[in-house]
């Protein structure tokens, strides 16, 4: 929801992104960081399995 009392941009003179002035942006940043790390972990695992086949 719009994080200001009146649903008008005329009352906004700072952050204009969704969920501004709440803790949500921090959580989204954390989730995005976790995704990056998880993708690297999964990617390393599956790539290692594939490369192993060529060593056998």
């Amino acid at each position, binding site marked *: 929801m719009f994080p200001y009392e009146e*649903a008008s941009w*005329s009352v*906004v003179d700072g952050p*204009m*992104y969704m969920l501004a002035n709440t803790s949500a942006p921090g959580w989204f940043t954390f989730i*995005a960081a976790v995704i990056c790390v998880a993708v690297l972990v999964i990617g390393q695992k599956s790539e290692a399995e594939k490369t192993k086949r060529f060593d056998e």
Partner: protein
Amino acid sequence: MEEQIAELVAQVAALEASSAGAAITNTMFAETFYYLTIPLMIIIHAGFLAYEMGASRLKNVLSSGVKNILAFAFMIPTFYFFGWWVYWAFPTGIPGAAGPAGISGLEYANAIALGWGDGAQYMGPNIADQASGVFFGAFAMFAATTASIMSGAVIERIQTVGFIILAIVLGSFAWVVAAAWGWHADGWLVTNFGLHDFGAAGLVHAVAGFFALGVLINLGPRIGKFNADGSANHIPGHNMPLTVTGLMLIIVGFWGFLMACVIVPGEAWSWFADKPATIYGTPITLSALSFNILMAIAGGIIGSWLFTRDPFWMMSGALAGIISTASGLDIYFPAMAFIIAFSAGIILKPCADWLENRGIDDAVGAVTVHGTIGLYGVVMLGIWGSGYPALQGAAGDAPTINFVGQVIGAAVFFLIGFVPGYVVSYVLKMFGMLRIPEGAEIAGMDLVKVPAHGYPEWGNKAPITAAE
């Protein structure tokens, strides 16, 4: 006393001169801003050209290029002849009544967007008008982009003239109607339902993607794409690196596309004299775009790499990342844009496979990347952005962004794309103007249509002839 009055008069004159100077600077800035979006958007077409030719087999590489270049060329004059007029004439719907913002309707369109009569003064060089030409130019590039989205899906079996007719219907009419309804301050989807689609995820990408689907149903698959039991074969293009580079160029060009979605101060349709706005009059900054576009590109690439490991799908994922967030690039938080784009990158390939398993041969995945993900982006904003002002001013002026409004907008964009695509291609098929004959398709379209050779020194039996 007289001296003080004279001093005040001088100060007022200086202020007036300064204000006039600022206005001129604003006007020149706006003109330059939009002018620069035009070559940036032409980079999109360099990208489409490269990726379509790369995705074509050797025997079709140049005919795919000819088709692509010709579509671009026909978009400009047809958008000049009637596309620009359609945008201004029908925001409130048919029959073209004037809207509350006073910049729409048949009368307004006749006055500013026709190449004859009174409107001609705004459709050619005019010393008192530094806005119309560059604004028209940016919109003409939107039109050309829309038509090119369909172009890649139909390669290697479509007739050139039939394709150009389809491109004109899509680029100079279908998406323009969608833009008038959903990308204009008087658009009925905006004023009645609170639709918000800042970066045209629905009105450009979804319309083009589902127009392509309508065409593909009538066009049919390439010979050899499907086996007798209905299973699909992969028909690799002749040059994957060219295709991937082309996709990267499209990404570059989209910075110009999205930049042109910003209404800066200093031109005839500016919302404000001192700050930029979206086409809806809501706030936007280029910094917002920088944050969110970059995060969306990254999210889309990472999401599609996770399951495909294929550079074609990774770069398509970059595009899907932008498209999935385009509706709300003005208000997403960067990490949200990343997460939404990541999800788009993940669903991209399964959606394309789903379509292929139903007998649709979309050579470059355009229906999925632009159509499905375009609608996904429009609906996503309804989920995350509900309650935000859709249009300038207080909520009372128009509904705020809401889930139902975004879904209605998505449905309308689907229909504006799919129905004309299906109907016009059906008519072309009836007249034998849609698909090339089987023999020509097997021989290769370059041999049949193009008096030149893509790679004369290998593999294509290029004859050596005397120089003229």
